[in-house]
């Protein structure tokens, strides 16, 4: 730092800004883009990229395998089914959320940058919404995009690409609907938890705990309780809720060994639960940002 010479060099005359000021909507958009980039560590050092990018790559593996099989020329070899895709990568998606959400929520609280946002045109709800939208978008990139790739892979593996696409036209809307609902629910849970503390380690552990413990407690309660009410305990597990509405969107019944078959709940109930959880978590997120001291 050339402290001594600085005075003479920066004496260049100040120009006022006369261009457009795009206001609040632009500000929120800029924050959204910034957060989406930050989700994957773009513009950050390598250490920030490692986890999100690594996990995203793993989330693509099943689709890549299917594409590889198709490329190898195997006909009608459909190893990976779209309705099962999220089940294969569920722990990866949970890890992705647990890695990214604390990064989005905690950094500004730790560094004190929150005050700079709130002293600009961005309101507290704008801030929460932009982060929510960014995490949903990032989640879509690791859910719906692999599904699209899988669809292409499966179609290529089929004897006739276009015939497959015609026959399986229900798949893309189901994949998109389930991917969107999954992304919204997981993102909302992740942010609601991560917003509570500036400490990244705490929120990462807490987010993983919700997903992992849920997937243990839900089926356990289901199996120990003989009552009819016990069936609903499966709704405590986010993974099973995701599996439930995904199968429902695809119009597929769960396999006999799947806990879902045991609970035998209506598919729409899983979707409704996901929406309710997302709304509740978003409520917590907004409540937190309404009160947070910047």
């Amino acid at each position, binding site marked *: 730092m050339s402290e001594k010479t600085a005075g003479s060099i920066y004496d260049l005359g100040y120009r006022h800004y006369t261009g457009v000021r795009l206001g609040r909507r632009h500000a929120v958009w800029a924050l959204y883009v910034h957060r989406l980039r930050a989700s994957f560590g773009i513009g950050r050092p390598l250490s920030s990229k490692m986890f999100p990018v690594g996990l995203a790559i793993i989330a693509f593996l099943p689709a890549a395998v299917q594409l590889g099989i198709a490329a190898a020329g195997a006909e009608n070899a459909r190893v990976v089914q779209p309705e099962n895709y999220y089940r294969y990568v569920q722990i990866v998606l949970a890890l992705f959320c647990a890695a990214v959400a604390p990064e989005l929520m905690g950094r500004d609280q730790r560094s004190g940058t929150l005050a*700079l946002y709130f002293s600009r045109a961005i309101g507290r709800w704008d801030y929460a919404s932009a982060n929510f939208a960014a995490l949903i978008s990032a989640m879509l990139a690791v859910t719906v995009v692999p599904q699209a790739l899988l669809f292409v892979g499966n179609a290529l593996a089929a004897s006739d690409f276009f015939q497959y696409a015609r026959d399986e036209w229900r798949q893309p809307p189901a994949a998109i609907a389930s991917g969107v609902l999954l992304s919204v629910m997981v993102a909302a849970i992740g942010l609601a938890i991560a917003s509570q503390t500036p400490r990244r380690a705490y929120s990462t552990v807490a987010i993983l705990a919700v997903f992992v413990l849920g997937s243990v407690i839900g089926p356990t309660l289901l199996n120990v309780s003989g009552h009819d009410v016990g069936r609903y305990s499966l709704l405590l597990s986010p993974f099973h809720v995701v599996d439930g509405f995904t199968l429902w969107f695809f119009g597929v019944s769960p396999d006999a060994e799947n806990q879902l078959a045991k609970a035998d709940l209506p598919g729409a109930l899983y979707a409704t639960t996901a929406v309710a959880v997302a709304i509740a978590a978003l409520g917590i997120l907004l409540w937190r940002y309404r009160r947070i001291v910047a």
Partner: protein
Amino acid sequence: MPLVTATQLTKRYPKVTALDALNLELEPGVIGLVGPNGAGKSTLIKILLGLLEPTSGSATLLGFDVARQGPELRQFVGYMPEHDCLPLDISATEFVVHMAQVSGLPRAAARERAAETLRHVGLFEERYREMRGYSTGMKQRVKLAQALVHDPQLMLLDEPTIGLDPGGREEMLDLVTRVGREFGITIIMSSHLLGEIERVCDHLVQIESGRLVRSAAITALTDRRQLLAIEVDGPAEPLAARLRQLGLSVREDGRVLFVELKDEALYDAIRDAVVDLGLGLVRLEQQRHSLEELFRSPAAEQAVARV
């Protein structure tokens, strides 16, 4: 249009009252907000920015109601907080560009303004490096840059020299002065150091325990107390006596005499007196009382008043 109005502005916390029915009206300029730590300076700034909600009362800034017209108002305002506010794992350039965009500037304009602003605050090659490695002085410059990048009409600077060494303090004060005087941006700057306010500001607002103690132009506070310091190479007493004969009020402080400067004729009177007494004039200097001196204690006030 007044820059700031505050009407019965009150902020109460469970245990303390940070602002106590504060009434204030300020015109644009370079305004210094002074008071001891905990006087309510930061609270006032945060309420004006909409970061805190007042318990009661209202305030306007640039003609906007701070509670109801926050988003419109804040496009024209820059804020440099007292606390740390920089994400350390990105570069100053990237951060300031982002902050410009969040202030409403299109991307291209944000890049251009960020580069210019960082240059104005004296950050050059190092602006491409992660801020983790910056000195306190450099961080303070980035904090100033992010408040300036969107060319606000008003900047609120909360203790801009905090944590800086004397050299860095001087440079920061120079920068703030430049922003206020040359860039023509209205500034409200808080400090617990009177000397800083005196150097940079043209208006002073003193707050203590959430109440307004005084609000006045700094020249009004210091001008009417101008003194002339006289030092001669011989005994000072005869000169003091001679000047008193002329009806002047003289205070002796060791070898130095202080005479209240009322008009220019005083210089001639002193010259003649010195020549008549056959003394050599070592020093004849106009002294402006520092604010520090005025504020220090009632005793100091009286000492000045006695002159």
